[in-house]
């Protein structure tokens, strides 16, 4: 099919291409009414130009230019999420639904959450009890020097409190370390859930060992007072992140009626709420652990608040968003 030379083709059509490019720069909401009116037409013409240029075997850079132009316009015009992006007003109900979505997601994945709970707390209870009776077991997880430091740290109690600087530093450390562990615990679940399982079991064992060791050293009350405030958030988040990893891994192992890749993609999107929720829980935990748990507040208050936190977390998971589900 021979019609016009490439040069004159470009000369004729370039104005339209440039107008189309102008429409693709800003977001759709910022376009002029005139531009919106012509956008679809410009796009269809560019599609036709691309087809014509391909048929006429014009030069490769021109074809690439047209392909990219059409590609970008296509992405813009068929943007599935444009409607969501446009919705700026936030209604009270939406906020409530968003706040409850984490609890709903936890209940949706309750099988994985229960398995993760046993994977973490099983070894935890075993290690705590065993190390309490045989403190030497702790040397499997830590160097003797570290153990001595740990024992000393909890022997004194926290009546004196700490400087603000130390609190802030530790909070930063908890965020970086604990959230990092939780996110990794999720990510490594992609290989059949194996990585998540290892993380859950290992962290259960090592945390339980520390508890047992400190208790065997006679500071059991102190470590309980220290950890009770944030433990509901921290341990809950690790378990949930692990559960998300297990669910992801299982979706690969047993995809049901879907293809394996489709199954993994869907589950990945659905457990993302769990991962975000766990990360937010860990931010809370880090703030509590850094500023509250280490403070000089009387241990009775700390324990009361700690139990309050536990009740709060559990009732959130059990009750939040129930009405919407029904």
């Amino acid at each position, binding site marked *: 099919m021979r019609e*016009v030379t490439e040069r004159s083709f470009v000369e004729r059509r370039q104005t339209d291409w*440039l107008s189309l490019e102008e429409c693709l720069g800003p977001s759709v909401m910022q376009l002029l009414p005139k531009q919106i009116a012509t956008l679809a037409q410009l796009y269809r013409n560019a599609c036709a130009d691309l087809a014509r240029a391909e048929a006429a075997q014009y030069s490769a850079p*021109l074809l690439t230019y047209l392909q990219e132009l059409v590609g970008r316009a296509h992405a813009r015009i068929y943007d*599935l*999420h444009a409607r969501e992006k446009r919705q700026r007003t936030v209604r009270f109900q939406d906020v409530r639904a968003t706040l409850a979505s984490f609890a709903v997601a936890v209940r949706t994945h309750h099988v994985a959450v229960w398995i993760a709970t046993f994977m973490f707390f099983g070894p935890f209870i075993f290690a705590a009890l065993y190390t309490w009776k045989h403190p030497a077991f702790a040397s499997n997880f830590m160097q003797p020097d570290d153990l001595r430091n740990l024992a000393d740290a909890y022997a004194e109690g926290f009546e004196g409190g700490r400087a*603000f600087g130390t609190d802030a530093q530790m909070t*930063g450390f908890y965020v970086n370390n604990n959230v990092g562990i939780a996110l990794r615990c999720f990510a490594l679940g*992609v290989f059949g859930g194996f990585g998540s399982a290892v993380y859950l079991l290992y962290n259960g064992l090592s945390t339980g060992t520390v508890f047992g060791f400190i208790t065997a050293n006679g500071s059991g009350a102190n470590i309980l007072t220290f950890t009770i405030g944030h433990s509901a958030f921290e341990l809950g988040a690790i378990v949930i992140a692990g559960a998300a990893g297990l669910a992801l891994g299982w979706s690969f192992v047993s995809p049901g009626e879907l293809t394996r890749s489709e199954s993994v993609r869907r589950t990945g999107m659905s457990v993302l709420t769990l*991962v975000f929720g766990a990360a937010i829980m860990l931010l809370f935990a880090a703030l509590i652990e*850094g500023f509250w748990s280490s403070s000089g507040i009387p241990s009775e208050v700390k324990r009361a608040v700690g139990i309050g936190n536990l009740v709060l977390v559990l009732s959130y998971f059990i009750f939040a968003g129930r009405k919407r589900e029904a």
Partner: protein
Amino acid sequence: MLDTTVAIETPEHVLFHYRLAGPVQRWIAHLLDLLFLAVILIGLAVIVAMMGTVLGVGPDAGQLKLQKELSGTTTGILLLIVFFAQWCYFACLEAWKGTTPGKAVLGLRVVTLEGRPITFSSAALRNLLRAADALPLTQFMGAIAPAGLISMLSTERSQRVGDLVAGTMVVKKTERSNQGGVLVWPPPEPHELAHIPDDPHLSPEERTAIELFLRRKKRLGPARERELAEIVLPLLQQKLGHVPHDPARALGLLYHQAVNAGRKDAPASSRNISGHPTPPPPGRPGRPHA
């Protein structure tokens, strides 16, 4: 060529191709990002350290205490920034712009398998799974990612594990121009064209080969130009129909004839949506319009 492009069909039945980015380009882009992050973090750390020194120079106890407080607080904030750099930098930038500074340098961009811009969820998912791609290593923020490399080499669209879970792929910008084909210079004279067949049928490969040669011509010396043209000419001898004394010029003429012969040199005008010619949009200098 086929195995590094992905074809996507629009509802208008137009096929367009994305060029996939290979593992090496993506590795370099990632290293650039890490370098960028390292420079920022080290810069921040240096500023913080200097502030601490300035504020806490005195020997008295009050200032020492202040310095201690400050250094603790700033260490905490720096640790927070390290955390965000590690887990949020990639996800946020990719969700916002579809690319990161390191990727942008190499012209790389993340899109969904359908060629659309990625959502925040996809961006978050593919970057959370960097930890899985880095296996069996657990450090270095994915600077070396054996699992990811194996995955990229063994999947059709060169996806790492994170891409597979999030349904994304990384594509590369290609060289493009809206300026039309190569102009043979100086313009062919009628007596020169007299020796060239009216309608030489060049295969797409032949056309592309000559086009590449003509584009490079400016940068070649006369001797090298002639040498290259002489290598190609025997393959096209049949279509040319005679033995030219200037092979490079003959290739140009052959190309000109194949591309332009029989086509109309229509005036710049005609097809506009509104029916009347629109002026070129303002603020775009350097785009010749004729």
